[in-house]
């Protein structure tokens, strides 16, 4: 059985006909030719397929495309502003937070989504006080590691991934402090 759906992918409206069994990941990769999200396990266990769906990070291999008619999807490819990479992407390159690169688009999307969650005050498994107000400034290394643990990296780039995210957190918090001081 087939269905025709509309998606906004990296800012562009796309109409696509899919098998009702087609995952969002396969719709992006096989039908729309956007191979930025990767298939590492197809079972929601590795995170390589992570995209931002309506602004939140999610595993596109666990979503049926037909269930997301009208959704806004941003892949790592769409995070760049023209030639200008997203700050997380620049930081990943600066800190050599990748090797084979296959988990990387998922890591990047996950990091961007995770920073939004943290800025919005969401706690994690390692958050000590669930009732306290929290923001980006509370993201220490343990918090970053915990919140990024849905994205496997077999090359073992974790140390550098944490360093890259730590730098972006620091820059963002400093910028906010400067703005507030004005």
């Amino acid at each position, binding site marked *: 059985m087939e269905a025709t759906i509309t998606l906004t992918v990296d800012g562009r409206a796309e109409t696509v006909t899919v*098998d009702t*069994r*087609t995952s969002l990941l396969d719709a992006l*990769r*096989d039908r729309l030719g956007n*191979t*930025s*999200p*990767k*298939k*590492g*396990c*197809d*079972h929601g*266990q*590795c995170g*390589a397929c992570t995209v931002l769906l309506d602004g939140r990070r999610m595993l596109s291999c666990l979503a049926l495309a037909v269930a997301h008619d009208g959704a806004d999807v941003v*892949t*790592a*490819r769409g*995070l*760049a502003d023209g030639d200008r*990479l997203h700050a997380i*992407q620049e*930081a*990943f*390159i*600066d*800190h*050599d937070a*990748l*090797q*084979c*690169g*296959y*988990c*990387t*688009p998922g890591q*990047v999307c996950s990091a961007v989504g995770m920073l939004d969650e943290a800025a919005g005050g969401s706690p994690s498994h*390692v958050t000590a006080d669930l009732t306290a107000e929290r923001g980006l400034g509370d993201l220490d290394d*343990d918090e*970053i*590691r*915990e919140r*990024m*643990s*849905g*994205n*496997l*990296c*077999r*090359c*073992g*780039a*974790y*140390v*550098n*991934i944490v*360093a890259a995210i730590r*730098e972006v957190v620091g820059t963002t918090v400093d910028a906010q402090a400067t703005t507030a001081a004005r």
Partner: protein
Amino acid sequence: MTDLPASGIHGHPHRRIDGRAKVLGTATYAFEQDVDAATYLYPLQATIARGRVRRIDTSAAEALDGVVAVLTHLNAPRLADTDDKEYAVCQSDEVAFRGQFIGAVVAETQEVARHAASLVSVEYDEQPHQVVLPDDDKGLDDPDEVNAGYPSDTAQGDVGAALADAERLVDETYSTPMEHNNPMEPHTSVAIWSAGSGDGDASLLLYDSTQGVHSVRRTLAPVLGLKPERIRVVSPYVGGGFGSKGLPHAHNVLVALAAQLTGGRPVKFALTRQQMFTLVGYRTPTIQRIRLAADGDGRLTGICHDVIEQTSRIKEFAEQTATATRMMYAAPNRRTSHRLARLDVPIPSWMRAPGEAPGMAGLEMAMDELAERCSLDPIELRVRNEPDIDPDSGKRWSGRHLVECFRTGAERFGWADRGEPGARRDGDWLVGLGVASSTYPAFTMRGSTAEIAYVDGRYVVRIGASDIGTGTWTTLSQIAAEALGVEVEGVRLELGDTDLPMATVEGGSSGMASWGSTVVAAVDAFRDRHGKDPEEGATARAETPEHADRKKYATHSFGAIFAEAAVHADTGEVRVRRMLGVFDVGRIVNPPTARSQLVGGMIFGLSMALFEHSVMDARTGHVVNHDFAEYHIPVNADIADLDAIWLDHEDTNANSLGAKGIGEIGTVGSPAAVANAVYNASGVRIRDLPITPDKLIAQSGSTKTGSPQSGHM
């Protein structure tokens, strides 16, 4: 650049050239190559461990809309050479292991292919099978040689007498489990078959996820009955390999067979994660009896390392588990052996540091036990047994600075703070330090060719090498730029295509030494012929240079790995709080990518120590935990403060570039370093990897030195 380590000894840090494409996701891996009218393959796999396919009914699959072809042993094109049974895909009704390919469905979409595969019904004649490695040596084979061409057994002196006369003795058995490489990108092959107009002019284009395009071509050509030049293999980006993509596997043959049934339409095949536990190699389980004899001062008088491991009944792969023991420490009497069980199991193959990783896990745990029995610091024990020459070959070392690695690491890591086993406590956690030696052979493979061309004001460097995440795109460009005397931006590297000159496989940590020295030779040839001011289109080629001095030396990398482990006193949970690797690996071309490889290798070893274990079901021949939910590798939260540094010793005795290889040595010493830290923390010695909480708790009551603290472990 903001934060790349600037402490590199030789190389200048350079951002990964492929970094931009990888953070965007626009780097195209094999499955993502843009081909017209693609079809999709889903394989049929045997559900018995041994026997024959009696009947296979494909009619329902063939009747399904969207199915292009169904392949079984009944209709598969005949292969030209079936001597290597791994590649003899669908050529008979025989089943040699559970999960073996018995056919495939090709369809218009992935969904239809998978559905159609589920409609094929198969009946078998089953035979009894044996899939679990026996722990005695009955019925085992003595292989002619082990992987990488080493002899199976070695003996020097009288090890029996040394063991009988030992003042201090370790006689223990260590075991490591079946483990799977699990690169993040599944093995993928896209095949386009052109039948041609007559005999012998068929051709195959293969987009493949591989560590060596030329090795794939060379291996598949005789199997498929094609001349090598009729096969083109393309592989610009590879999502990790760790050895499992070092040689072609059965999926390459299956997709090439299927592509002969589609009238020239491309066939795309990506294995599922589950299928990767059966079809693309794995590390054999090992059972290692290690005996160390020493005098009262901790000087080794005898070393004996006897290994039992497995291979498949249809193809031999004998892991070289005890080879590092042959060269690691001085002792007049020494013996090593490998014995193989031939089982009805999938075919084992290379997994990051095959041989050295499991073998040094055993040896370095045993050395930790010997240190305790000699009342010596583990570093001091190793210093006392440092050999002046390679005890195996009798050759001089091309460079061996292991003691300096230990001294440097001990100071940086705070080794002096290490206490007695079970003595240090931090709240509910028992904390300890461990150390282990690491080593890996410094291979330089001959047989590559590089070409330099001057095109549009830039130097194009062509070599059919690969980058599986190791950094080759960047480091070979840097090597070429340095030799040419230009900026890296003045060089354009081409790799990952058999249309480019021959290159050896990315394996054995040999890439930089082999390809780098070849590129330098090509630059020399180019300058000799064309000078400093070449004309547009000027080209020159060179092969890997011979390094005559090399044969005089034993060439190895070395390292000292330090770990701090915390063991929860109640639950037995282990956390590795810190790790430091100090390496003697020769010249470093690009510090940031080198550090990434060394650190990544250490994480691979930490994973061996604590997590990885493929569980074989004796009844079915099935790896039951065949996915990332149950086959555990570290996640970000498992890795804390972990770093790698290196000593400032080029090794131009090993090769003209002075680089000894960095891809595997991080993995080698890490399992034992972590295991020894767990012992120092808890007082519980686990000799069977991985070290999981159940084992720690089960043994905590019976250990002598691990005196229970306040009723806990």
